[in-house]
């Protein structure tokens, strides 16, 4: 089980943020937009990762990773990380937006607008002047 520690942690991140989709985040329901946001960034960070691994800036503890490696000795866990974490970030952002929209909608329903008189007021003032 120890070898799956990194992957399990990434799975936990996705599991914790998944309910945001149900609160109206609408991220997984737009897979093309999600892919176009996440994949280019993941590509750039994978290049950074490969360079850092090659330069010995960081290493991965063989005890806590599967040992599966992509080209340039990048652990498969890193690809999962660079997809999962931005997905979690976008879900959080879209979730915050959805909750904000919902709160504003509820407030505008609760407080009836003084709509009929308001638009005419500037015109009346102009006439009086």
């Amino acid at each position, binding site marked *: 089980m120890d070898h799956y520690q990194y992957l399990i942690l990434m799975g936990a991140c996705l599991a914790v943020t998944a309910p945001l989709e149900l609160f109206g985040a609408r991220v997984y329901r737009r897979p093309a937009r999600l892919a176009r946001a996440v994949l280019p960034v993941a590509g750039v960070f994978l290049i950074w990762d490969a360079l850092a691994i090659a*330069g010995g800036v*960081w*290493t991965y503890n063989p005890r806590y990773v599967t040992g599966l490696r992509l080209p340039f000795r990048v652990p498969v866990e890193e690809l999962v990380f660079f997809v999962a974490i931005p997905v979690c970030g976008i879900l959080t952002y879209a979730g915050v937006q959805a909750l904000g929209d919902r709160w504003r909608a509820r407030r505008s329903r609760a407080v009836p607008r003084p709509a009929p008189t308001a638009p005419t007021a500037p015109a009346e003032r102009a006439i009086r002047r």
Partner: protein
Amino acid sequence: MTGLGYTVPAVLAVAAVCAWELAFLRTGLFRRASYWVAMAIVLAFQIPVDGWLTKLSAPVVRYAPGQMTGLRFPWDIPVEDFLFGFALVTAALLLWEHQGRRRSGPGPGRRSRPDRPAPGRPQPEGELR
């Protein structure tokens, strides 16, 4: 602290992401409250997740001491990780916003007024689906 193979790229990544938004994408993400709320939530979750990955007692990721400042806070998280995380999540959010804006105009109210064009930008005809 000699090579700075992590510190320097981490600072540059944050600068690059900010410059990308301010000079090219201009999504307005940094002016949106929902972005800063989401980033605060992301930060709150980064601490336990990153803390797990970097804990010195059983690290998943091990850093070469010569490549960074050596400042670790909170727990054993290298401070550079927060720059790295900021750049990763913000870059993905910028592309996410960029996609949404290309399709249906700017701003948080884009769903309620989908026909408003983005100011100062040509509308990409034929990309609207």
